[in-house]
């Protein structure tokens, strides 16, 4: 009997340790939440947590798009500007009929679906453009998306440009539209923000794509060893196009949600989101050398960033120090992650 019990205990210790190594990032998140919560209990109140989750929802949708691309050894610098493009396009089509400075004063009233689909469509167009440049012209993803990033910013600025005033901010969105970002569903005592539901649905969708579909298997294979993938008959261009297209869709949705949550949009929306998304992914264990990355990791990466952002504010840390801490987290997280591969050589 004693034998069995010791075996049992040893197994438990080992499985705990295994769990810890496999989910180190998750444990870090919990530790951060606990520490900040103990120092400042107001951090843990319901409204603050919901606020963090709402912000994270937009960021998560974008990070999931970038994450897929990173797994294929690509990258996408145009993500942030595409979010901005989708925000102004959807916003411009969601303005109230009685709002005085509408972008399109003569436009007839229409369903709320129009701005939503237009925003997502705009993202898809940019995604397809990126995919084409990377897959067919063979331009390295970094350069290709550096180019489209700049182009998209110009395009969205022109879209809201009203000479001689220049690019004008958009406002006066319909309630149905802003509801997507700030509304909730369910009975009063147990309501869930719509934006969080959307993020969860998207996460499940991307999880299924990455783990349960042919495309997903090909994405990991292409990133893990492109030569072996080619020899195995994987079509590199087709899968590259699909990855960038899906990412574009997600940026589009992210832009729509951002505009809806903020109740307004400018051509500077989404600026820098691409780097935040890449940072969240690498914190969450996505390898920029390809082939490695999980949806859960990306989500936790986003949460760590947003929890730190919020927590440091709650703790009263200066904004400049926040930047330093966030930068350190990125370097340390990737530094630790990369050691497993460095030692092997």
């Amino acid at each position: 009997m004693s034998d069995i019990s010791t075996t049992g205990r040893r197994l438990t210790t080992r499985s705990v340790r295994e769990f810890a190594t496999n989910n180190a990032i998750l444990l870090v998140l919990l530790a951060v939440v606990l520490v900040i919560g103990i120092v400042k209990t107001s951090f843990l109140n319901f409204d603050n947590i919901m606020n963090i989750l709402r912000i994270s929802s937009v960021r998560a949708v974008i990070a999931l798009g970038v994450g897929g691309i990173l797994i294929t050894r690509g990258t996408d610098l145009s993500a942030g500007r595409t979010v901005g493009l989708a925000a102004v396009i959807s916003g411009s089509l969601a303005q109230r009929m009685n709002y005085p400075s509408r972008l399109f004063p003569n436009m007839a009233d229409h369903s709320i679906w129009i701005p939503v689909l237009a925003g997502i469509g705009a993202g898809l167009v940019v995604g397809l453009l990126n995919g084409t440049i990377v897959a067919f012209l063979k331009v390295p993803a970094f350069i290709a998306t550096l180019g489209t990033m700049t182009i998209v910013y110009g395009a969205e600025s022109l879209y809201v440009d009203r000479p001689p005033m220049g690019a004008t901010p958009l406002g006066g969105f319909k309630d149905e539209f802003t509801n997507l970002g700030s509304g909730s569903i369910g009975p009063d005592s147990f309501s869930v923000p719509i934006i969080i539901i959307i993020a969860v649905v998207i996460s499940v969708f991307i999880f299924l794509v990455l783990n349960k579909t042919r495309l997903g298997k090909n994405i990991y294979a292409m990133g893990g060893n492109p030569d072996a993938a080619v020899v195995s008959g994987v079509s590199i261009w087709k899968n590259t196009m699909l990855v960038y297209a899906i990412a574009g869709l997600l940026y589009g949705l992210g832009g729509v949600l951002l505009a809806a949550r903020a109740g307004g949009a400018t051509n500077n929306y989404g600026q820098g989101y691409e780097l935040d998304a890449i940072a969240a992914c690498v914190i969450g264990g996505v390898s920029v050398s390809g082939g490695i990355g999980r949806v859960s990791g990306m989500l936790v990466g986003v949460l760590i960033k947003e929890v730190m952002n919020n927590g440091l504010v709650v703790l009263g840390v200066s904004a400049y120090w926040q930047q330093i801490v966030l930068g350190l987290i990125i370097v340390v997280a990737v530094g630790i992650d990369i050691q497993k591969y460095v030692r092997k050589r």
Partner: protein
Amino acid sequence: MNESGFIVEMRKITKSFPGVKALDEVTVKVKPGSVHALMGENGAGKSTLMKCLFGIYKPDAGELVLDGKTITLANAKQALDSGISMIHQELHPVPYRSVMENIWLGRYPVRDFGLFKLVNGGKMLRDTKKLFEGLQMDIDPRVWVKNLSVSKIQSMEIAKAVSNNARVIIMDEPTSSLTENEVGHLFRIIRQLKSEGIAIIYISHKMEEILEIADEVTIMRDGRVVGTYLAKELTTDLIINRMVGRDLTHRFPPRVNVPGGVVMRVEGLTSTNPRSFRDVSFDLRKGEILGLGGLVGAQRTELVESIFGLRNIQSGKIWINGKQTIIRNSIQAKSHKIALLTEDRRTTGIIPVLSVFDNMVIANISKYLGKFLFLSRRRASEDVRKSIDVLRVKTPSPMTRIESLSGGNQQKVIFARWLLTEPDIFILDEPTRGIDVGAKYEIYTIIADLAKRGKSIIMISSEMPELIGMSDRIMVMCEGRATGILDGKSATQERIMELATQFM
């Protein structure tokens, strides 16, 4: 000069890798001012020995003696510092930099200004010119290396070795990509180095060359030294005999396959690359194992990769089951039920960071599509589990990363990957390379079993016993051309070697 009369002595060097003893008490002694050739089949241990001498590998046992003093080398830098240089078969210069910058890389002459140092370009140019003059090399030190021919780059590397005060220069297959004229030029440089007392260790497969340039020849086989001979006492036949003269120590499973009708016919296949294969024709029959023999550089890999659609063909025709077909890429090759196990498992075979499971199903994902484009994990798992059982893959679980498996087990996973696509024609490029002896037998069993089940197999191998032991027929190639097709039962190693060196 020390009393032994040797500039460098490798004494009883032993080096093992997991599952294989690459070097077994190897002793080679090299005289100053001489060319010492190192010969042997692929896998005989020449490269491993040279890597020990050049500080890349650390020997398990044995002694390196340089100029009478025992030395230990922790890395290539220490080897260079003690006067040992190596000219690699694959040259890796920095292409978009000048010749002189390549030569003095890592030890640029500097002008010291106290607070800071600047690279002294003038001195570098003068030194390089002087170096080239001394070696009678005609290269402009200022041009980009990218614009030089292979031969010139090689000369540059030799000059670099000399500038490093090398007393021993290892040359690994230095003529493999040189024209006849360029070989003559290289030999002139080698003779000059000799006259200056520098020892050359010369690795090559080419008999004629060895007999012309070498003073002494050490022949290796299976990680041991067969003997060291004076070059003038050797002939091509004697060398071949000593390189291959052995009992078949490997054992092969019995084969009961019966070759049937022609499945694939290849006629006059010629590469778009003029240095690669040309005018190759052969038939492959159902249930046949066709061995593909030859030395490294015979363009066998290029040939099979072209058949598989990974490389371009200038001319020639391929018939599969009597129908003429054009295969432009691996996707089309798969649809013609051809599978290819590539030569270099690490770079084109495994996807290291993925699991055994994912590595097995990647070539065959379409088969597991279920509802709404989702994969049926159940069916895939079943196939993976069966493959693991049948091929006896030793893995803790299907979800283990393939990179943590041994070479033999990785190879079995790649076998399984292609078996799942249910091919009729199986192209195996060095299927047992880097696999220990025990696992080799298992791979042979898999191959024999495939042939028994009517699959047609093309097997490239540089190990002659393996070719003879496993093939129904053996096609031998030399320098891109097919030099003959032998019957597996009557083929001898000597005959294969003759065909493999026909144009050398």
